[in-house]
């Protein structure tokens, strides 16, 4: 049995500071990390591996240094990894990204389960997982929060919705996207750490995955960013001073006046 887990390297925006003037994230000198949700995706893949003995392969599309992200997940227990890297992939939107990853996954060969994170914290779209499913014609379950049962050829999952949870059962093959309810990502073991340093990670170009170059990168991306700007945030804050009682009365007065309460 084969599992492929999709791992993206992202800038660590959580460690970076907010510029108090412009209110943008200061991103210079920020480290690259594994997208936090993808650690949960890896954890989910490893939970399935623990039950079934499946081989877990991680795949990433990104610049050469994305290799670090792949080594990190190998140290958690992923068996092997491939990196899709080439100028042709640069500038991909979710259509081109999901196409490239789907092609890469095909090249890895017959995946029974494909696991992605719920969303990447830079692009924040949550579109790539279902996109891969469509390219490969697999069913998809998004926002998986836990497994009710892991079988040799099926999964019973609990997925998060606005109303609570929905329980779904599906036979392989399937794509799942995973949220943090799945359980804390496991720590690297010493053995896997050593392995992760030695592992040879192949780098695949569009030719290696038999991709149509017109569908990759900027060329293959129907969406275009036409403008980027800093969000306008709140106007002026009004500080309500005084003793707690006075402050309480004042805010209740203001909110009633504004018909908010």
């Amino acid at each position, binding site marked *: 049995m084969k599992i492929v887990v999709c791992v993206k390297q992202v800038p660590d*925006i*959580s460690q970076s500071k*907010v510029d*108090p003037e412009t209110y*943008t*994230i200061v991103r210079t000198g920020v480290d690259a990390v594994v997208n936090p949700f993808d650690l949960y995706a890896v954890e989910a893949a490893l939970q399935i591996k623990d039950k079934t003995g499946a081989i877990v392969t991680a795949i990433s599309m990104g610049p050469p240094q994305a290799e670090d992200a792949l080594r990190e997940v190998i140290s958690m227990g992923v068996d092997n990894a491939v990196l899709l890297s080439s100028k042709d992939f640069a500038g991909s*939107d*979710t*259509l081109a990204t*999901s*196409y490239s990853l789907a092609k890469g996954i095909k090249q890895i060969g017959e995946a029974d389960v494909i696991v992605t994170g719920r969303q990447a914290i830079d*692009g*924040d*779209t949550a*579109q790539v997982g279902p*996109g891969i499913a*469509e390219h490969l014609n697999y*069913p*998809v*379950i*998004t926002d998986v929060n836990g497994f009710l049962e892991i079988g040799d050829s099926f999964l*019973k999952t609990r997925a*998060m*919705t*606005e*109303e*609570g949870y*929905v*329980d779904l*059962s*599906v*036979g392989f093959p*399937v794509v799942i996207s995973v949220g*943090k*309810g799945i359980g804390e990502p496991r720590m690297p073991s010493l053995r896997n750490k050593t392995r992760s340093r030695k592992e040879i990670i192949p780098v695949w170009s569009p030719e290696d995955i038999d991709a149509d170059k017109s569908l990759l990168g*900027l*060329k293959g991306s*129907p*969406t*275009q*960013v*036409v*403008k*980027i*700007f*800093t*969000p306008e*945030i*709140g106007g002026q*804050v*009004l500080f*309500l*001073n005084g003793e*707690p009682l006075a*402050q*309480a009365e004042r*805010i209740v007065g203001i*909110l009633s006046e*504004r018909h*908010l309460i």
Partner: protein
Amino acid sequence: MSLKIIQKRCVSCSLCEQVCPVKAVSMTEDGLPLIDSALCNLCGICIEKCPTGAIVRVHGTLSSQEDFDEYKGVMVIAEEEEGKIAQVSYELVSKGSELASVLKVPVTAVVFDSAQEEDLKNLSVYGADRVIVIKGEILGKPLIGPRSRALYELIRKEKPEIVLTGSTSQGRPLLSRVAVRLKTGLTADCTHLEIEMPDRHLLQTRPAWGGSIMATIMTPNTRPQMATVRPRVMRKKTPDYTKRSEISSFITSPEILTDPVQFLGVIREETSRVRLDNADIIVSGGRGIKSPENFSMIEKLALLLNGAVGSSRPPVDDGWISHSHQVGQTGRTVAPKLYVAIGISGAIQHLVGMQSSDCIVAINKDKDAPIMNVADYAIIGDLFEIVPELIKTLEKKKTG
């Protein structure tokens, strides 16, 4: 592929000429940039620097060039919650009809089988000119596979120029699949939509990078233009109860109506509290609350205000409250009329989930906490003194 200048947006600032690393841009006599395609390596720096978004990339066509102009009209995909049409669908029908009136086209609401008669009428009341029900028993369940295939068939037939739905656990994966199948673009989680005439482009604005920047995105060369929109960002318009629209059915090919995914059941959160997404008022507590026992103070305040209870991440991580109450990047995005943040510093991951609330009140002992950047009113002091006074004042107001 090449770059194109949208003339009426250009303000002739010549920044593009200055930033171009390969000197491919020169300003013409009439103040417009000219891009030498032999030199241009499409690096995109000029696109990034252009203050007015006047430079765009032009693609080769992705799908077979079906006549672009055949695509007309705005389509809103409705979704349901607890057996009713969700509020976000009415918000989008309202917004959709606004866009449609600029484009001078009708707005069509699409619902999946099993929707109630009453709800279908409501869709017209909020602006739908037509309502199409996609028939098929399995479509009554929120299964993405069959719904995406059925919707794909409908879109191929109807050819709308714009397709919108909510960025929710149903809407996001649904349109992700459909957009891939149509080989068109899909912009996630939009907070602002606007039409650019005369080209009929949909300008889709959304937060990215955890909300620290906003990006405006266009889908210039493929149709339809598709977007998911955050719930509670668009305003419902005043209902027009006299409006009636044509209701029709769409029957798909039966073979697409099967799915390997089986529905086992739903679990609604065991909460008697008002749900976060639809709440007009949310009272949230953060790490400043210090202990699970103290959290009951937040609940009491929420109850008094008839609001829902929210939380930043630490109380969830510490198990004081369940994850479904978490607001922010890894939790929910909310935009109530009133958001009260108690003992919350306002880390960017929290702010992105609540900053579009109409009115934000922060209670914090630190006047420099980042939450003050988005708050309308701030009460600086010890929450353990302030919140009890607040509760007392509200109780008095209620009885008095």
